[in-house]
């Protein structure tokens, strides 16, 4: 599927390309509904379970409780206890089960309740899910999705607010996808489920119930491995993903009023990276700021900056700056605002880049 995708970005408002795989419901008229991000995820899960009998949902509290964030609401009522399963409380087990199921023709969608609890699952994801196709030369495959809420900003307890997407992005064979709006959550989750290889789907829980968007429940997927250019601009490329897209949008709005034109790019699939879109943007603007919530060192921002240094040195009019979390453990709720990059941080980084010349 992904090999057929165009290398260039998809604009959010643009028409779906022919290569975007979609399974449109032709029997009934698709429902259109205002959804927040977590409702869009729930809608996509319902849609795909209804259309693909091999899809199975598993995790802690996903069945009768509908997930602690309600992402799996009513799935068990709709699709039964065989296909929607509460597991014992063991993340390594959830991942191992998913690998085993995936090798036998099912499409498991596992929920890890919070990203901070994924570590027991990593051995299965890294040593098995990411390698099953390779080590059997394609005899067995591992088409699974692991969903995890991640990121800070909801005053959650310790271990509930980290952003460790770079750990996962470093693993060859794993796709890491992060939606930044309800619309993209719906379309990207459908694409993740239909992908024939493992996908880690990270859900920015800070915006789970932020701005609602009108979504047509037509089963239309969005492409993976592709950045989304959310707005076009001339003066600077602002690259981000997940919940921070909200702050980036605010900054772009403010700068627009000052006559500064920002091109805002939502990376969406942080691995493998669509550098084509980012390089095209920077070739146009000559300036780039990357914003992410994860700690700065070893983050995906560093990878993007390195690739700009490799491929766009002569396009750059100013140094590439990163706005990121600090290289410290995620503070508890009282100080998380100090840790999290905010509008002011993004704004001042952009001013610094623009002032360079």
């Amino acid at each position, binding site marked *: 599927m992904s090999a057929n995708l165009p290398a260039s970005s998809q604009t959010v408002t643009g028409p779906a390309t022919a290569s975007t795989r979609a399974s449109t419901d032709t029997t009934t008229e698709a429902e259109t509904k205002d959804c927040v991000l977590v409702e869009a995820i729930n809608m996509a899960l319902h849609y795909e379970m209804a259309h693909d009998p091999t899809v199975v949902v598993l995790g802690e509290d996903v069945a009768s409780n509908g997930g602690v964030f309600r992402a799996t609401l009513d799935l068990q009522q709709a699709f039964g206890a065989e296909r929607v399963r509460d597991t014992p409380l063991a993340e390594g087990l959830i991942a191992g089960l998913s690998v*085993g199921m995936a*090798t*036998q023709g099912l499409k498991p969608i596992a929920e890890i309740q919070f990203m901070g609890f994924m570590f027991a699952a990593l051995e*299965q994801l890294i040593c098995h899910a990411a390698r099953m196709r*390779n080590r*059997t030369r394609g005899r067995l495959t591992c088409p699974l999705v692991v969903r995890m809420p991640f990121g800070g900003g909801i005053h959650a307890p310790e271990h509930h607010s980290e952003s460790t997407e770079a750990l996962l992005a470093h693993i060859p064979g794993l796709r890491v996808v992060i939606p930044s709006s309800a619309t993209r959550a719906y379309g990207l989750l459908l694409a993740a489920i239909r992908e024939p290889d493992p996908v880690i789907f990270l859900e920015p829980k800070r915006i789970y119930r932020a701005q609602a968007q009108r979504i047509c429940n037509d089963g239309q997927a969005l492409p993976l491995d592709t950045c989304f250019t959310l707005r076009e601009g001339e003066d600077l490329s602002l690259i981000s993903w997940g919940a921070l897209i909200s702050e980036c949008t605010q900054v772009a709005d403010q700068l627009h009023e000052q006559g500064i034109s920002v091109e805002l790019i939502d990376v969406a699939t942080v691995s493998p990276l669509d550098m084509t879109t980012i390089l095209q943007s920077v070739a146009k603007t000559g300036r780039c700021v990357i914003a992410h919530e994860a700690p700065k060192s070893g983050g995906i921002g560093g990878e993007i900056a390195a690739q700009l240094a490799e491929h766009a040195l002569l396009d750059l009019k100013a140094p590439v700056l990163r706005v990121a979390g600090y290289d410290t453990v995620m503070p508890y709720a009282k100080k998380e605002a100090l840790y999290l990059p905010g509008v002011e941080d993004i704004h001042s980084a952009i001013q610094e880049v623009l002032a360079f010349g």
Partner: protein
Amino acid sequence: MRGRQQFSIHFLQYLNAQGKLDLPLPEWITDTPLLLTIYENMVQARLLDQKAVALQRTGQMGTYPSTLGQEAISVCTGLAMAKHDVLVPYYRDAPAQIIRGMSPAEVFIYWGGDERGGNLNRTSRDLPICVPIATQLTQAAGVATALKIKGEEGVVVVSCGDGATSKGDFMEAMNLAGVWDLPIVFIINNNRWAISVPLAQQTRAATLAQKAIAAGIEGLQVDGNDPIAVYDAISKAIQRARENQQPALIEALSYRLCDHTTADDASRYRDADELKAHWQEEPLLRFQQFLHQQGLWDAEREKALQQRCQQVIDTAVAEYLALETEPPGAIIDYLHAFLPHALETQRAEIMLKSHAINSREDQK
């Protein structure tokens, strides 16, 4: 205080170390072809293992984990399973894999450092061997769950060593098998050693079989050097799993007569007398003595069998040594169903690097 629950662990042994009967034989023992098949596969396994070690020692193969002394467990695992069952093997289970259709050459190919030894038999849905300890156990639970959800007949058989029972994955998988009534049989090859660490340093438990009790599933200990006990226990556990969706754990007591792998030297940490004593219990000779006693075996049959096995091994070695290198793109082409756009440049670099390496070698 009063007693709440009582448990006991049974030990099954038909043939003692001298090949003599401790119990009346099970009903299936009249199946002479099966007895001979078990024996022939054990001999085949030992000779293949010797060849693998020899290939490593002569620099023709990489590090290899020997199956010496553990033939009864792996062979009976393979033979007790139906074709549509699913094997989830750990890395010391090549004999079972071969019985289930993997090419013997793949043992050499895999341990020779080539992914094409990953059990490429396309008609199989067995998992490939698992190197990270105990991780196959939760996967096996997933396979069993998949069979149940799809309404397919089939039992999952998953194996591990004694060291694996110290990991959480072991308990997590058995616990789930109990909760979800999974058609799965867990087999521990308790060969008493996890590299240099003896069983007494893995657990204070008197048996590994009793760990099943905490998961609410059946646990049984068998003499893993007694093929009749091993086959009897595994085939009956598979039958119960098939008919009643009833999981079970079988602890098969064996002894690692070899080093952990060819990269190990067990004489550094293991008493020579202990090893010598356990050679008296090894499964192959014991079973051969039994077959002799039953009038089912003689020197002439043994000679013919050795020749047949040697032919299989010679063919496998020839296939291994003649295997041409995979094209360089193979190191990235099997990662995804389709090469992501982002990896195209690196794939091109791989091709160029391979070309440069080949050119340098041509110049030498």
